[in-house]
Every structure is written in structure tokens, then in C-alpha cells.
């Protein structure tokens, strides 16, 4: 099953391919087998794609090239037609992307959630807080060190929104507010070293468990929902893209097989899944 540990090293590719139950290949060899998937680092760094992509390739004969960048960069690639399918988690930007006519068929795939973590000593006294708004206000009031990714990724966009939600002025430039400009993993390491608060997606956080000694201080607020959508670039606008391939991958992601793999991923290693399969469910509203 899909219990391949995230972070098991490059081995993940082969072992996952060998152990994943595969749907009987029905499709003939595709005309354009190369599909470029632009996605966020969390799907790659958590190891989820190491499970999904081989299964897809085996089933369909497509060759997926996974380009793991921030959601912002992924959508930039989409706008230029350099990607055939996007798997991203930055809802506002996604909506704009679709509204601007770059993407079509934006479909809900899965979610997990963001959590606020921080030093065990909790100098800002976040423990016991109920809402993320409360938490962010406490951090700002106490000027407690906070590490932001600052890289326009989905996580970063969400975090920026959280400050807005508390009606605080944007903390950028404050001495207690550090911007790493790096991915989630690196930012977690910085937070650990600086004994600082930060907002992270649960998948990466779990993958880093044992490497980060910062406990979760807040979770479960609906505002911390982390939703992943798949988008196919608009073939009318971007004729060079491999729309067929992109659609095939989209179809695969929402297929029952893939949804099961997503739901099972990480259970074995972390005791709880890293992602929750959402295909076919209504769009979550709370943001």
C-alpha cells in the first residue's frame, strides 16, 4: 500500500512503483507522452508524488515530469504554457489564474491543514488559544520571533492572510519577523534554530517530526485549511500544452485509486494520514 515513508530517500520511486496496485492499463500509448506537472514543494518533499506519479505512469503510459516549485512559480509556469497540469494550494491565486483565462477545469483533489508551531516554552503564550486570529495577535503583541517563508508559496500567501485577518498591519520589516525566502523544510529548520513560531502545512511538519523539536500550538481552526486543486492550463489560450496528458493526470488524481492512495499515504509511518482525499466533495468555504 501507500505507506511509503516520506523522506525515505530516492528509493521511494522504485519501491512505490513496485508495491502500488495498478489499474489495468486500458489506454493505448499516448500521442504526447510527456506531461509536465508543476506543483508545490510540499507534495514532492512529503513523498506523496513518489507514490502517485509511478502509478499514473504505469496505468497510462504517460511520462510525468514533476517540477516542484512554489505555488506562485507553478502558476507562472502555467501562464506561460510551460506546464501541462498544476497541483497547487493557493486558492485566491488559483481563482485569479482561472478568471484570467489561463486555467480550466480547476478541481478539488485533497486537503490537509496548516498548524501553528513554536517553541515548547511558548513565550507568547499561545497554548490554549482557540483561533488562529488570537494566536497571530498574541505573537504580534509580544513581538515573538516568527519565521515566514516569504516566497509567495501557498503557505506563504495563507500566512500573510492570517495577519490581515487579525487586522494587524503587515508585519514585514519588523525585527521579530524573519523571512527565509525558502521552502517549508528549510523554514522549519530555521524556526527550530531560532526557537521561533511559524505556520506550516501538516504534511511537511510530520515529515520533519524528529528533526524539529517545536510542538504544535494551534490546529483545527477552519481558517487553516490547506486545499489542493488540480488545474489544466487553458488549451485555447495555451495551444502548445499537452492538454490531453494534463487532463489524463487530472482524471487520475480524482480517480478512486488515486484518492485511496492519497488517503492512505503516511498512515503507516506517522499513524495519521498526511492528506485527506477530497475528490467530488464540495469546495471548502472557510479560509
Amino acid at each position, binding site marked *: 500500500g501507500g505507506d511509503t515513508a*516520506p*523522506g525515505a*530517500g*530516492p*528509493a521511494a*520511486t*522504485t519501491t512505490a512503483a513496485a508495491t502500488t496496485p495498478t489499474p489495468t492499463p486500458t489506454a493505448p500509448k499516448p500521442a504526447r507522452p*510527456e506531461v*509536465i506537472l508543476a506543483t508545490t*514543494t510540499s507534495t*514532492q*518533499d512529503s*513523498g506523496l508524488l*513518489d507514490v502517485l506519479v509511478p502509478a499514473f505512469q504505469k496505468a497510462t503510459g504517460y511520462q510525468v*515530469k*514533476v*517540477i*516542484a516549485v512554489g505555488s506562485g512559480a507553478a502558476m507562472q*509556469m502555467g501562464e*506561460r*504554457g*510551460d506546464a501541462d497540469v498544476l497541483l497547487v494550494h493557493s486558492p485566491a491565486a488559483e481563482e485569479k489564474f482561472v478568471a484570467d483565462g489561463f486555467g480550466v477545469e480547476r478541481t478539488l483533489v485533497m486537503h490537509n491543514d496548516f498548524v501553528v508551531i513554536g517553541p515548547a516554552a511558548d513565550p507568547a503564550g499561545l497554548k490554549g488559544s482557540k483561533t488562529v486570529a488570537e494566536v497571530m495577535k498574541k505573537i504580534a503583541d509580544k513581538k515573538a520571533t516568527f519565521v515566514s517563508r516569504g516566497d509567495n508559496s501557498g503557505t506563504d500567501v495563507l500566512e500573510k492572510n492570517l495577519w490581515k485577518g487579525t487586522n494587524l498591519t503587515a508585519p514585514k520589516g519588523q525585527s521579530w519577523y524573519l523571512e527565509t525566502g525558502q*521552502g517549508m*523544510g*528549510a523554514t*522549519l*529548520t530555521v524556526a527550530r534554530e531560532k526557537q521561533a513560531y511559524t505556520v506550516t502545512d501538516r504534511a511537511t511538519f510530520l*515529515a*520533519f517530526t524528529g*528533526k*524539529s523539536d517545536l510542538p504544535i500550538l494551534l490546529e483545527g481552526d477552519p481558517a487553516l485549511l490547506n486545499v489542493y486543486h488540480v488545474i489544466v492550463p487553458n488549451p485555447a489560450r495555451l495551444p*502548445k*500544452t499537452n492538454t490531453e496528458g494534463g487532463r489524463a493526470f487530472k482524471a487520475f488524481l480524482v480517480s478512486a485509486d488515486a484518492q485511496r492512495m492519497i488517503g492512505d499515504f503516511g498512515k503507516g509511518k506517522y499513524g495519521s494520514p498526511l492528506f485527506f482525499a477530497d475528490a467530488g466533495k464540495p469546495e471548502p468555504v472557510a479560509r
Partner: protein
Amino acid sequence: MDLLLDALREAVRLLRTGDGDVYSITLRTALITSVSTFVAALVGLPLGLGIALGRFPGQRALLAMANAGTGLPPVVAGLLVAVLLWRSGPLGALGLIYTPWAMVIAQALIATPLVVSFAAAGVMALPPALHLQIRAMGAGSAQYLWLVAREARLALLVAVMAGFGGVVSEVGAAMMVGGNLAGETRVLTTAAVLEVNRGNFGTALALGLILLLFVIGVSAVLTTAQARVRRR
């Protein structure tokens, strides 16, 4: 510190079991860096010789460019090549982006200024009388270049090694244009970065150690040649 021991143990384990495709990744690293270094040598050595020896307009500008190019950040080189090779770019139709060939192009772009700059510096360090001797023998341009190159062979080897060192260790361009695709464009450096991003620092270090082993093997050629000359 434990991490270092872990890394060592992990490196040994990886090499023993071949886990994580470590052998195919190492082989790919070897192939890609050799081809890029070869291309850079093919372009850079004649250019370096020409800049050091010839007298033509723009020669100094070329030397300045090569010298400055030794500080060309891989990520910028990668981005430049990516802009060209992206589907939306002028060469997009070739479908080279995210292939080993794209990496070769970007890495050759990084290595060439290194080769040019160090080759030129090495040739300029030859005794001035040598040039007269060779010309006096009646050497045509090609023979002249060949004999000068022969006399400067150790310096040219150093230049090629500089190019090799530049590309074997870089990660920015490899990521950018190769995409770090498992089984296709993943090389030791990009694999190490992936492991860092995943928080597997031990594995990352292990991959780094394996890369160093490879580099030590290759650079032994240079060290041996230098030791032979030194013994005289």
C-alpha cells in the same frame, strides 16, 4: 556530530545496497558532468588559447568576460537556459527542457568561462621565449596552437578540472533546467538538495560524500600528473 557518523554509515549502506538508485544517480552524474565538461573543454580550451595568444580586437573584452564568467551563478545560468528551452521559449520546440541535454547545455555554459579563464591564465604564464622558439621552427597557426597547448598541458588540465569542479558541484542549474526528475535528471547534488528539503540531512550528507568520492577519483588524474611533473 552524530549526524556525520550517521552520514558516513548511510553512505556506506547506500553504496553497499545500491538503495535509492544511488548507482544509477552516480552514473548519471558522471555522464552529464563528463559531457558538459567535454563540451566546455572543446569550446573553452581553443578560446582560452586564442585569447592568451592571439592579437585581435575584442580579445581583452573576451578575457574580461571569461574572468567574470567564473563567477556566473549556476542559478542564473540555469535560468537563462531555461528561458530559452521552456516551451514558451525560442527553442521550446526542441523539447529539451527537463532532459539531461538541457543540463548539459546549462552546465557547459557554467564551465566554459571557467575553462577559458584558467586556460588563458595558464598559457599566459608560459615563458615568453617558448613562443618564439615554436614560431621560429616554422609552425603554422594550428601547429603553433598545438605545441603551445602541449607545453601548457598541465595548466589546461587544471582548467578542465576547474570546469569539471564547477559543474559537478553546482545544483542551481541542474534543478532549474533538469527539474530533478527521478530516474531522468536527478543527479547527486539535486538528490542531496531534495533530501535536505525533506529533512533527511544524513542521507543528504551521504550523497555528498559519494559525490566527493567521485570527484576525488576524477581529480586524482590531475594530482598524479602534477606529482609526476613535480618529481622532475
